[in-house]
């Protein structure tokens, strides 16, 4: 019998619609998989246990009852001959940064640990309306502030299914780990600087950050409101396209959601890349970061195996009839992280103001003399180190006397980053690219606790993904083989505004061309024999 947990979302939905299998059967098999691999869910104030290192720990909250009723509803529809939706019976998880009515919506923070949302985020609502079956809420960095998922207040934090001693990336680490480990075919993540693409690359799955505004942010607990993008995480490109199909589109509850029509992402997805112009930029083959000792900026070439994956992909594309344009200048790429440090922190500090102990969430248990002390203690006890750092930084660079020097200046540089992309994609310009091909991350997944604690270095894991957030353009990370130590490598495709259909097509072309390659047979160590 087919192993349902390894099936794609497209296959599952087709089988359900064809009455070959029921949504409940898929759910049962998926729940079994979760029991086998996931271990205990993240929780507050837990002591580490030895067994923790042998499990994925993707979840914070299991919503089994909800999933059961959704699966039964799908089966009932099928029984009555009704349309059960594009995702009929497809199990999915949701990053716990989205509000879902009646479920704890924690943002992986103590300050929201007791918060149960009274409403459902638009993209989640659309997934459920399309017949999806929600398995639960998965772990992340606290308020999405990180690139390893280790900063979650809900421990143990997720681990990388390919190597449990490595991080799954972040902040959508629970999402990528769950999808890689067969705990649901799809996961809804968010990407503010790379938080979908980087964990997707680390976990050997597909992750897409759509154009800013392509997917509604309503119900997404905000980090950097001008950067946040909900998007799909899936095991293959067509599943990502299918999921995007369901969640994309205008939303009356989000004024910044784009009103452009949503194209059929699957229709032309296999038409190949013949005649397309795909670019490579030297600015994406190195990283620039402050030396931890001297504080001086140093430039460093990416490890050879990361570069090779991109070159190999470029060769494949060339062989399929695409034109490869080398040396596309993206000179402002190196400013992506410093600019992000300013803009995202200003927005984050403001977005965190509402967590004040007055209305919901954590309030200090200690006796307080006045309102200000209640604020200070509630926030001091409720927030972990990452939110605190971001509040401090955000308040500093937006203060009246510094705003011009930092925040206003960062906004100007953000515009320059946007110009890099406009120049590269301009149909009348010198490069006229359909897509820019880059590595997704500077390295493969790093070890648990190796980088955690160094907030600056952690941030540089996003150097190659954050420019797309500044510019608002879409990007996708797809698996492109493994490093010699067996860790997944991701490559990234970036395109102009609303070019998702085209990016998915380019990504799918790579997937098809490498279908028969040996590395495609590899499975996460955790799942050997399953």
């Amino acid at each position, binding site marked *: 019998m087919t192993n349902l947990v390894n099936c794609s979302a497209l296959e599952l939905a087709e089988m359900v619609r064809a009455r070959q299998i029921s949504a409940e059967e898929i759910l049962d098999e998926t729940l079994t998989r979760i029991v086998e691999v996931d271990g205990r869910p993240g929780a507050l104030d837990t002591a580490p246990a030895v067994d923790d290192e042998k499990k994925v720990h993707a979840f914070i909250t299991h919503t089994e009852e909800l999933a059961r009723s959704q699966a039964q509803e799908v089966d009932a529809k099928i029984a009555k001959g009704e349309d059960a939706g594009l995702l009929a019976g497809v199990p999915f998880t949701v990053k716990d940064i*989205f*509000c879902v009515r009646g479920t704890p*919506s924690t*943002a992986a923070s103590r300050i*929201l640990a007791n*918060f149960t*949302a*009274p*409403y459902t*985020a638009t993209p989640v609502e659309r997934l459920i309306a399309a017949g999806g079956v929600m398995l639960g809420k998965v772990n992340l960095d606290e308020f999405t502030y990180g690139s390893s998922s280790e900063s979650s207040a809900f421990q143990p934090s997720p681990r990388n299914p390919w190597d449990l001693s490595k991080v799954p990336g972040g902040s959508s680490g629970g999402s990528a780990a769950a999808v890689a480990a067969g705990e649901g075919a799809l996961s809804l993540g968010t990407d503010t600087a790379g938080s979908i693409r980087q964990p997707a690359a680390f976990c050997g799955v597909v992750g897409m950050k759509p154009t800013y505004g392509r997917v509604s*942010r*309503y*119900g*997404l*607990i*905000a980090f*950097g*409101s*001008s950067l946040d993008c909900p998007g799909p995480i899936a095991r293959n490109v067509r599943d990502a396209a299918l999921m995007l199909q369901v969640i994309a589109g205008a939303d*009356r*509850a*989000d*004024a*910044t959601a784009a009103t452009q029509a949503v194209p059929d992402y699957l229709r032309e997805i296999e038409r190949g890349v013949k005649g397309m112009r795909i670019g490579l930029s030297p600015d994406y083959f190195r990283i620039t970061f402050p030396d931890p000792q001297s504080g001086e900026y140093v430039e460093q070439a990416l490890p050879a195996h990361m570069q090779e994956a991109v070159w190999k992909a470029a060769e494949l594309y060339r062989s399929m009839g695409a034109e490869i344009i080398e040396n596309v200048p993206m000179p402002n790429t190196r400013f992506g992280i410093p600019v992000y440090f300013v803009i995202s922190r*200003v*927005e984050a*500090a*403001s977005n*965190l*103001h*509402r*967590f*004040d102990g*007055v*209305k*919901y969430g954590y309030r200090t248990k200690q006796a307080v003399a006045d*309102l200000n002390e209640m*604020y200070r203690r509630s926030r001091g006890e409720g927030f972990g180190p990452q939110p605190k750092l971001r509040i401090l930084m955000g*308040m500093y660079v*937006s*203060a*009246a006397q510094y*705003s011009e020097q930092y*925040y206003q200046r960062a906004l100007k540089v953000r515009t320059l980053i946007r110009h890099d992309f406009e120049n590269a994609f301009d149909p009348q310009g010198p490069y006229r690219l359909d897509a820019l091909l880059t590595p997704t991350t500077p390295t493969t997944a790093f070890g648990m606790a190796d980088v955690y604690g160094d907030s600056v270095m952690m941030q540089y894991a996003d150097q190659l993904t954050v420019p797309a957030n500044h510019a608002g353009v879409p990007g996708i990370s797809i698996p492109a083989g493994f490093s010699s130590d067996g860790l997944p490598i991701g490559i990234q495709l970036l395109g102009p505004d609303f070019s998702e259909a085209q990016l998915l097509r380019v990504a799918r072309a790579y997937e098809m061309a490498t279908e028969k390659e040996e590395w495609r047979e590899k499975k996460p160590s955790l799942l050997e024999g399953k």
Partner: protein
Amino acid sequence: MSVEYEAVIGLETHIQLNTTTKIFCSCKADSWDDAPNSNICPVCTGLPGVLPVLNRKVVEKAVLLAAAMHAEIQVLSFFDRKNYFYPDLPKGYQISQYDHSLARRGYLELPIPASADPNGKGYVRAVHIHKLHIEEDAGKTKKERNRRYVDFNRCGVPLVEMVTEPDLRTAEEAGQYLIRLRQLLRWLGISEGDMEKGNLRCDANVSIREKGSSVLNTKTEIKNVNSIDAVKDAIQKEIERQIREVEKGHAIKPWTLDWDDNAGVLRMMRSKETEADYRYFHEPDLLPLEISAEWQADILEGLPELPLERRARFMRDLQIPEYDADILTADHDLADYFERTIGLYKGDVKKISNWLMNDVLRMRNEWGMSMSEMKLTPAYLAELVQLVDEGKINITTAKNLLPKIQESGKNPRTLVEELGLAVVSDDAAIRAICAKVVAQNPVEVKSYREGKETLIGWFVGQVMRELRGKADPKLTQQILKELLK
């Protein structure tokens, strides 16, 4: 030699717009009769993950006000976050507009009546506004028995903030500005403009200087004034306090003062040594507000002739006295009513003005309705006055008819017929009554014939009584004189 001082006053007004729903969600805007926290939703209470969606009606009403204030409406303006902590501010920031507001500059040519002019002549004060922007209101907190309560109903109620330049010079002028602003808000139909209910709020910035000087001295800010009279009262007291301080050689400190309406005194709330840093930045959850030429034109199609313009036109074109023009333009309905009536009436427009000011307004107030709700329509009023002019009915009858028209909704001509109120000008009918009166009163007839001709009025009165006031008075007198010869 004593120094002569003048006050320099600027007003910061917050105007609650009377939209159906709040500015960023679909809760109803008005919570006046609602229990605390019963008119709220995830958006206006700032739950995690929610987003604001702008109510276009708020923009439209604010644009009307901006146009009426002769302000420059900006094609592109931005929303900003004003960050601060307070329990009644659920998001920890207020969505407002900061450096790119909906409208900039503007002015009101404020007529100061003779009664408010120390020289007794009246004059015009140009009051400029610096900017006009839209924002959301915060909730309310109250302290009771050492506990603090928060009511979020008011969160997200749409406000316009309009700040004047320091152009006002007396407490009277400040009062006049608020009266004219309130009139304008009601005229445009964008706000109830009621200070007592808090849908018009006003903080006053006050400083003094030597008359003739152009310096701006340290100002104080007066808050929590809840009526136009209180604004005048508070400003006057603050001017006097500042003069006393300066004369004693003390410096004025930039205090924020709280008006205690019951005690009629100002109290210091806090000294304002440093300005709060609200860390404004553009609200990323809302798109820049673009008011296209088409949209603006659509909105301004609904902009009526303004009250002060109409007042001037009444005086200029209709030769109506200033006093009348002021009353007739007190509200839009009344001014319309007046103009519709005179359009249907063939006579002296001043007569209609008198009817309106003396009789119709009193009746409207008694009945507690607006002019547009009256069954006594402009056509009926014009007809009624016309009937008097034609001598069909006399003034007394006409005045008595007013409530009857209002009650029945019937036109005056029909009512006059139904009730038999028409003046009797049938010579024979009057002659018969006159003859009867003369026959029944031989003593008076004798006196009259002996020379006491003033008795003619008494005879007319008797005839009138017989005919229940409907006799044509001229004709009656003529016949009586004939019979009494």
